């Protein structure tokens, strides 16, 4: 994992793999925030957990 230009079996370099991962994490965070908001509304406006 020392050569940053090495092409790995998936056809990606380390930098490209990191870029894919950054986007996946960001998407997960946005999805999580929307889901958290939806759950908050469900908690307030439904008998859930009451």
């Amino acid at each position: 994992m020392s050569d940053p230009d090495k092409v790995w079996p998936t056809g990606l370099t380390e930098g490209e793999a990191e870029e894919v991962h950054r986007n996946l994490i960001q998407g997960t965070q946005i999805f999580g925030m929307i889901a958290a908001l939806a759950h908050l509304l469900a908690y307030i406006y439904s008998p859930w957990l009451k």
Partner: protein
Amino acid sequence: MIYGKIWCVVKPSTGIPLFLAAVAIGSFAVHVALLTNTTWVKKYLNGNTAVAAQTMPMAPAEAPK
């Protein structure tokens, strides 16, 4: 970023759909479980129909012509 190098050994075209499918199936299963094990989700999805059916007086029968 931690674990970012996973995409050096797992093809994103395999790993990303797998990840998204896991999230989708997991959350769908939780909501189906809620729907089948509680009464209030069904009631909520029905809206006011249950209440309306109880409180609305029976419609008069149509007069013969």
